[in-house]
C-alpha cells in the first residue's frame, strides 16, 4: 500500500454494489491492499455466497462488514455511510424505464452523498459511471474519444435509459462537488469483461433478429478487463490530488470488434454471423428512427442514429490520463484477459 494514499489502512471504506461483477473485485483488491475496515453494501435480495467466499480468503476479510439495504432509503444510506472515509459507489440499476434508471442511479446517489456529508468523514467519493454518457454523433469515425469529449445531450432520443440515469448521476455528483464541496472522482469504464460475465458487448453486434449481426467491424473496442477496471477504481479512491477529475477506464493494447468475435467463435462455438458496415447500419437505424417518429412510437426507437454512432461508429480510446494521474497499470494484459474471459466457457457443466 502506498504511503501517499489519502486514507490509512484502518479507515472505513464503503463499497456499494459490492456483490456485483466489478464491485466484488473492488472489495477483493481493497482487502489485498490491506484495508481492514471495508463495509460491503448489498441489496437485501442478494445471494451472498460468492462475496462471503471471497472475504474468507483474506485476513482483512474477517473484519469486513456486510450491510444490506436500499439506497433509496435515507435511513439505509445513513447506516451505510456512518463513519466512512471513502465511498466506492458502484451500485447501479439496469432499468429499462427512464424513471427507474433515474431513481436507481441519480436518487440513490443523491441519498448516499447526503448521508456521506452528514454522517461520514468524507475524503473521497468515487462515482463509477460509464462510457455510455458520451455522444460521438458529431465526431469523425476513428477520432480519439477521451475525457474532454461531448456528453449525450438527448438520451431520450437515443432511447437509452441507462445513459440518462448515468448522465443525471454525474450531474448531481458535480453539483455536490461545487456547492457542497464533496471531494469526488468520476470513473467511466468502457466495456468491462471477464469471467462471470458471458454476454458479448453490444458494440460487437446484436442477435435481436435471430442471427448475429456483426456491427462493430474493425472498430477498436473500449475493453477493460474486470481486474484492471477494479484496480483503477480502487486507485481513484486513494490517490491524492485528483479531486473533481474524470477518468476513462480502458485497457492497453485494445483489440478490434472483429478480433474479439473471431476469438470468441474459435474458442467458444462457431456460429453464423453477418457483417453489416456502419453506413448501412446507420441508414437502417435512421429509417427506424423516422418510422418510429412518424408512427408516434408504434415501434419504439430502439434503433436510432445516436445509438448507432455510440455503439458502432468507431473511435480510438485513450487511457493516458489513467496512467499519468492515477499511476494505473493493467494487472492483466489483453492476451491473458481474453484467455481468462474465454476460459469461463470451458467450465460448463455437462
Amino acid at each position: 500500500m502506498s504511503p501517499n494514499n489519502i486514507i490509512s489502512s484502518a479507515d472505513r471504506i464503503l463499497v456499494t454494489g459490492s456483490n456485483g461483477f466489478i464491485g466484488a473485485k473492488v472489495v477483493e483488491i481493497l482487502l489485498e491492499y490491506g484495508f481492514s475496515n471495508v463495509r460491503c453494501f448489498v441489496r437485501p435480495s442478494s445471494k451472498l455466497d460468492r462475496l462471503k467466499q471471497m472475504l474468507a480468503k483474506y485476513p482483512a476479510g474477517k473484519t469486513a462488514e456486510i450491510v444490506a439495504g436500499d439506497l433509496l432509503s435515507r435511513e439505509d444510506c445513513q447506516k451505510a455511510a456512518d463513519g466512512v472515509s471513502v465511498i466506492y459507489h458502484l451500485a447501479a440499476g439496469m432499468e429499462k424505464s427512464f424513471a427507474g434508471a433515474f431513481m436507481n442511479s441519480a436518487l440513490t446517489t443523491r441519498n448516499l452523498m447526503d448521508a456521506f456529508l452528514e454522517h461520514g468523514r468524507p475524503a473521497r467519493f468515487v462515482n463509477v459511471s460509464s462510457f455510455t454518457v458520451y455522444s460521438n454523433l458529431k465526431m469523425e469515425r476513428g477520432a480519439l474519444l477521451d475525457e474532454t469529449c461531448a456528453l449525450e445531450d438527448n438520451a431520450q432520443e437515443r432511447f437509452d435509459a441507462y445513459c440518462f440515469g448515468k448522465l443525471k448521476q454525474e450531474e448531481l455528483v458535480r453539483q455536490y462537488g461545487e456547492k457542497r464541496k464533496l471531494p469526488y472522482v468520476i470513473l467511466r469504464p468502457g466495456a468491462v469483461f471477464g469471467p462471470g460475465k458471458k454476454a458479448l458487448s453490444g458494440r460487437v453486434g446484436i442477435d435481436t433478429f435471430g442471427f448475429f449481426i456483426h456491427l462493430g467491424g474493425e472498430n477498436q473496442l473500449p475493453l477493460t478487463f474486470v481486474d484492471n477496471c477494479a484496480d483503477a477504481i480502487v486507485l481513484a479512491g486513494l490517490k491524492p490530488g485528483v479531486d473533481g477529475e474524470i477518468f476513462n477506464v480502458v485497457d492497453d493494447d485494445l483489440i478490434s470488434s472483429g478480433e474479439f468475435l473471431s476469438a470468441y467463435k474459435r474458442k467458444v462455438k462457431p456460429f453464423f454471423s453477418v457483417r453489416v458496415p456502419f453506413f448501412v447500419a446507420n441508414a437502417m437505424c435512421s429509417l427506424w428512427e423516422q418510422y418510429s417518429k412518424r408512427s408516434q412510437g408504434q415501434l419504439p426507437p430502439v434503433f436510432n442514429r445516436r445509438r448507432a454512432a455510440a455503439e458502432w461508429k468507431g473511435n480510438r480510446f485513450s487511457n493516458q490520463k489513467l496512467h499519468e494521474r492515477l499511476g494505473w497499470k493493467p494487472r492483466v494484459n489483453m492476451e491473458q484477459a481474453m484467455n481468462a474471459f474465454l476460459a469461463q466457457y470451458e467450465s460448463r457443466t455437462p
Partner: protein
Amino acid sequence: MKSESKNLRIAIIGCGKIADQHVFAARRIGGCEVVALCDREVLMARQLGERFGVTACFADAGEMLRLAKPEVVHITTPPQGHYSLAKQCLEAGSHVYLEKPFTVTAPEAEELICLAERRGLKLTAGHNLQFTPEMLEMRRLVKLGFLGGKPVHLESHFSYGLGDASYVGPLLGNRQHWVRQLPGQLLHNILSHGLAKLCEFLDDDQVEVIASAHQSEQLRSLGGAEILDELRVLIRAASGTTAFFCFSTQIKPGRNELRICGPVNSITVDHASGSLIRHENRSYKSYLTFFAPPLVNARQHFRNAWINFKNFLTGKLHQDSGMKELVECFYQSIKNDSAPPLSYREILLTARIMDEIFAQIYKPKPPVSKPSP
C-alpha cells in the same frame, strides 16, 4: 361540468415508471396539454419534465393544484396515495384519472365516486386493457347480440411473469416495499386488469366469491416470504351468471384472455396476440365436425393477423393503444359532459371483489388454543 377551454390542462401526480405512458398517451391524443408534474420527490418530477418539456414541477400536490389549476389530474402514485390525492384533486375541482388499482379498499372507492358525483366531476380507473382494439370489437359484437342473450359464463386468465428482476427483486428484498404493504400484496397491484373484464358483464352489485391461492415453487425459491402468486376465483352473480378468474405467474406461455360464453354463441379475446375468435353454435354433418370447425377457426386467425398487419402499416397498432383509447374517451366525456368510459358500477364491483378475495386468501390464521393448565 362541461370543460370550456380549448385544450384540456392535464397534470400528473406521481412521476414513476408508468407516468411516461400517460404523457405519451396525452401527446398522441391532441386537444390537451400536460401543464404540470408533481412528485413527492421533486427530482422525479423534474426528470420527467426535462424529457417532455414540462417546466412546472412540484413536490406538493396542493401547491400544484393551486398554481397550475389543471382540469384533469392523472394519479400514478402507489395505490396507498390514491384516495387522499384523488379527494384533494376533486375538492380542487379537477377530474381524476386514477391508475389501477383504483383505491386500496372498496369503501374508499365509494367515497371518491360519491364526492365526484356531488361535485359534477368525473373519475376513471386505469383499466386500460378494457380498451384494446380486440376488446372494443368484442363489445361491438356483444352489443349486436352475437351472444344470443345475457352471458351465461365468463372466464378471465391473467398471467404475470416473475422474470422482471427490476420489479420482483426490490419487491422481494424489501418488506417495506409499497406493494408488500397492500392488503393483497403482489396480487393487489395487478388483479384489477383481469377482474374488471368480468365485472363489466356481472350485472349484480352483490356477488358470491370463492377464492383460493397459494405460493408457487418459483416464488418460494426466490424468497417470496408470505406473498401469494397463484390465485383462482369462482364468482356467481345472483342473476345466475358465473365467472372464473385465474391469475398465474407459472402458466407458460402466459395467458391473458377473456372468454364470454352466451346462450347461443361465445367469444374469446386474446390480448397476447391481439385477436378475437367467435365461437358460433353450428352443427356439421358426420365427420365434417372434425374438419370444418378447425378451418373456420383458421380463417379467423388469419383474419386477425391481417387486421393487425393492416393496423401496423397504418400506425394504429401501438402496444399501449388501450391506454390511449381510455384516456381519449375520458377526455371526450369531460368535454361533452357525457358518461365516463368505465361505469362506476364496474369500478366499484371490481374493488369489492378484490376486497373479498384478499379477505379470504390473507385471512388471519386462527389463534392456536393453549391447553388449559
